[in-house]
């Protein structure tokens, strides 16, 4: 099953979206968004994998002695993780303020913006 890791990424993304769409709690919704994002980590790392490959760090292996996985996707994933963490922090601080101003974190009960 050489496509299974890719399909796993798609599953994570869609299940995260399902959670977002049906969420009854905004903190849970922000968590679901993080699930959607983890799909991007899985896809990038799966794309960069090489059979038998090890980490592309040459402090303890001689260059060329072993296959290494694609370092570019690892760097992209690192960037992506930092972005995800900061977006989550920012969204959670908005949720804190929503909880204070609306006295609820249930999206069904937020009815200020309509039409």
């Amino acid at each position, binding site marked *: 099953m050489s496509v299974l890791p890719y399909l796993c990424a798609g599953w994570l993304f869609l299940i995260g*979206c399902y959670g977002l769409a049906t969420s009854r709690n905004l903190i849970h*919704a922000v968590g679901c*968004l993080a699930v959607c994002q983890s799909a991007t980590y899985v896809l990038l790392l799966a794309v960069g994998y090489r059979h038998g490959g090890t980490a592309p760090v040459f402090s303890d292996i001689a260059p060329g002695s072993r296959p290494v996985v694609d370092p570019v996707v690892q760097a992209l994933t690192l*960037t992506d993780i930092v972005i995800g963490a900061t977006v989550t922090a920012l969204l959670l601080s908005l949720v804190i*303020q929503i909880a204070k101003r609306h006295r609820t974190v249930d999206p069904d009960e937020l009815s*200020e*913006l309509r039409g």
Partner: protein
Amino acid sequence: MTVARMLPLIVATPLFGAAVLVGAGRRLPRAAAEVLGLLFAAGTAALALAASAALPSSTARPVEWVGGWRPHGGASVGIVLVGDRTGLGLATLVSLLVPAALAYAWRYFDEPPRRHAASFPALVLLFQAGMCGFALTGDLFNAFVFFELMGVVAYALTGYRVEEARAVQGGLVFGVVNSLGGYTTLLGIGLLYARTGELGLAQIGRALDARPGGPDALVIAAFVLVATGLLVKAAAVPFHFWLADAHAVAPTPVCMLLSGVMVELGVYGTARVYWTVFAGPGGIPAPDAHRALLALGALTAVLGAVMCWQQRHLKRLLAYSTVAHTGLFLIGLAVLTPEGIGGVALYVLAHAGVKAALFACVGVLLDRFGSVDEHELHGKGRELPWVAGMFGIGGLALAGLPPFGTALGKAVTEEAAGGWATALFVAVSAVTGGAVLRAGARVFLGLGSRPPGSPEETTGEGEEPETRRLLARIPDSMLLVPTVLLACALAVGLVPGLRTAVGGAADAFTDHAGYLAAVLDGRTTEPAPTPAPHWTTPGVVWGLLATVLAGVLALLAVQRPVRGEPVRWTVPLRRLHSGHVGDYVAWFLAGVTLLAALLV
């Protein structure tokens, strides 16, 4: 210093300004922080203008490999910035609008966070850096990073007035939907990386072109996923729901930037990615791309115009007018010719000035009367003749009154699109412009009567002003900024040099092979020249017709007794705009499906 060398500095200068403001922020008095912020923003604008002026021709593409990683044999490990006229022009537009917004916000907010007087200008500078980086980058992943930078800062700016229940809700909806769009784009980047092993726009384009023949499912999926994130930013239907919620609650200077440039950057991103990556023989066939963009554009324009007409909350009204205009921009892109791109470029330039000026006028009303509700403000604006004049002129310009740049852009775009698109352009401009004129007639002239409120919609009553207290006298800065912006929108229509420059820029923008050669091989090729956009008699006539129609619509609307309830046939449509993040996510996935279906 060459133009190429200046490109990274256009991104770095506002970032450095933000760092200085935050570092020194605790000791800086508020006025000093604001002056410093304005200086850094204006300095960036000066850099961008100097770089634009130093371009040898309007089809030139200065290329800077950051870190000096020049390509060998068409392959590089670095990131490239491309300062073609379009990218650099957008960076200039952003950099000019940011100081305008900061000048408007001069001594604006009532309560800067304690000992953090510099945080608002610092956030705006970061926003500027994100937008400039997005406009200049020639690397897909780097574009995603700058996309997220402008996103993150925009969510914080939207929720800036945390004491407002609506502001934090709008900020969250904006954040969730746009982040989801960003991650979709990243999934698409992952697919493209798997297929081509590259991240640069030109590199991916060349690798795709090496496999000519119709696109397979992978290429279609990659285009759909990458474009989805950009179309979320561009607020295309059905990804548009966040826009009205965010624009209705963001502080006015932020609205000016969101509506004036950020949304348009989504349109730009879609066009840039299409032309550099997918326009070659291995990409998306032109008829498919045409069909998809045209359908989404038409849907967006019509829905935006209908929703715009229904609003009484003035900021929401302007927000939906932005949605409608984005639809028109997308129709212009769908033509897939230099004429269409040139028309859209002129339209975007002038629209930025007009829309920002209109938001500035609404901000004045909010801070003077504590309301942005068309009916509650009925007749109150009589004491502000200057604002009334600008609001009226803004409405006329939005409808397409020659010789404003909006009219020129609209005329060129509709001519390029041809056929029934002309009717759509006239109708949409007339309705959105008419909605603004109708609101202006009620607020500033006191025409018509006041209807009772309806609980099912967002009114603009009882809003908190964004200044310390209700303004007794409007500061000159708040009047000067919209005046200058409108003058700039007028200049877009009148300066002939701009039209030639835009014409050349559009030729270069749509030259897929030329872009690849310039970036990867350092080879300059001249694109096939097309006639520069210009005024035509039919264009002027259609513009005048749209303006007259807008006026007639506005007059009819204010003279009819207004009912409390919304018009019946629009009720289901309005119910869809529920402010519920779950609904928006469901529509988001439906939109991905729709876009894919349009492409197959």
